[in-house]
C-alpha cells in the first residue's frame, strides 16, 4: 500500500504536519517494503488551491491512503473522487514513522467530512 503523510521535516522520525495543503513536505511510504521518500508539497506556496495541488500529488503518486491533521473541502473532494482514503493524526502520532505504525495497526481514525 502507498500512503502519504503530511510532514514538517524530511526525517522519517520527524513530526507530521497537521495541515495537508500547507504542509511543507509530503512523505510517501510503501507499507509493503517499508521504503519512504520525502517530496516538497506542491501546494505549500500556492496563493490558492493548495489542497487541490496536494491532493493531485497524492493521486499522481497512486496513493491508497493519506494521513494528515485535517482535510479541507477541496482536498477531500479530490481525494474522495480518486478513492483515496483519508486518516487523521492522533495525539500519539508524534512522528511520521509512528503515524504509519498506527495506520498499519488500524489505530488512526478515518476522516469525516
Amino acid at each position, binding site marked *: 500500500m502507498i500512503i502519504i503523510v503530511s510532514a514538517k521535516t524530511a526525517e522519517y522520525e520527524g513530526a507530521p504536519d497537521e495541515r495537508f495543503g500547507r504542509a511543507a513536505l509530503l512523505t510517501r511510504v510503501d507499507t509493503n517494503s517499508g521504503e519512504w521518500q520525502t517530496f516538497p508539497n506542491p*501546494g505549500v506556496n*500556492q*496563493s*490558492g*488551491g*493548495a489542497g*487541490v*495541488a496536494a*491532493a*493531485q500529488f497524492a*493521486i499522481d503518486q497512486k496513493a491508497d491512503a493519506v494521513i494528515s491533521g485535517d482535510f479541507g473541502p*477541496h482536498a477531500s*473532494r*479530490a481525494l474522495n*473522487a*480518486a478513492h483515496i482514503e483519508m486518516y487523521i493524526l492522533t495525539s500519539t502520532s508524534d512522528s511520521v514513522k509512528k503515524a504509519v505504525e498506527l495506520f498499519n495497526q488500524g489505530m488512526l481514525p478515518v476522516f469525516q467530512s
Partner: protein
Amino acid sequence: MQIAIASGKGGTGKTTIATSLAKSLAGLHQVHYLDCDVEAPNGHLFLKPEIQTQKDAIVRIPQIDVGLCTTCGRCVEVCQFHALAQTPEEILVFPELCHGCGSCTWNCPENAITEIENPIGVIESGITPEGIHFSHGVLKISEPMPTPIIHQLRKNEKRSDRSVVILDAPPGASCSVVETLRAADFAILVTEATPFGKHDLLQIFGILKDLKIPAGVIINRTDGHESEMEQLLKEKQIPILMQIPFDVSIAAGIASGRTLIDIKPEYLERFRTIFCQIESLLAAEEAC
C-alpha cells in the same frame, strides 16, 4: 482622473475620506464613486444612492463534456489556480478556485470544455442625491475571490476623460487592493499614527512603487503631537494631504451614517484643496 483611497490597515477611514471627497467634488466635476471593498461595501450607507441597475458579476468556469474528455490532464496542467484535478476516471472542477482565465478551454485537445457563467456576486449602480454616479460590487457570501468582481466593477463604469473616479479600496495589501489600485492616477492613503497603521502603510508603499502610482497620505485621528508617522513620510518624501484630529463628534456622526463634510462643513473646502493639490502634483509629474 482616477483616485484610489487605500490604507493597508482596516478601519483607518478610507470610506470616510472617499465619500467626503466624492461629495465635495460633486458640484464641480462629474464624479463616479466605486466601492471596491466588495467583501464589505459600506459607501452606500453614507452616499445613500438610489440603485437603478443590478448586474451579475460573472466568472466563466469550465464545464467538461465527459463524452469527449479523455482525462488526458492537459487542462489540469495549464491551470495555475488548481481549479481542476485529474483522477483516473474524471476531471474535477472547483468553481470557487477558478479565475475564469480560459486556459483550460483553449488548451483542451478534444474541445471537451465549454464555459458556463458562474455568478459570484452583483454589481449595483445608481445615482446619489448630489448626482454622484455610484457603483459597488457585492461578493456573494462564501465566494472566496473578490478580484473578478472588482475588475468588472471598474470596467463597467461609463465615464469621460474629464470625470473624477473615486475608488474606495478594500483594506489589506493583497490581490483585491492591487486590482483596485491598478491604473489609478493617484492614491490617497489613509492611515493612523499607530505601529499597525505604519506597518501596513509601508506594504502599500511597496505596491505603489511597483505600480508607479504617486501617493499622498491623510493621517486620521491625530493627537496634536508630531508623530513618528510624520517623520517617516518626511523621509519617504510623501506629502501629507491632511491631518484629522481625534474628535468624538466625528466618530458619532460617522456611526450615524453622516459624511465627514456633513459633520464638519469646514472640511468641504479642505477636500477641494486636496483635489487641486493632487491635480498640480500630477501636472508637475507630467512636466518632469
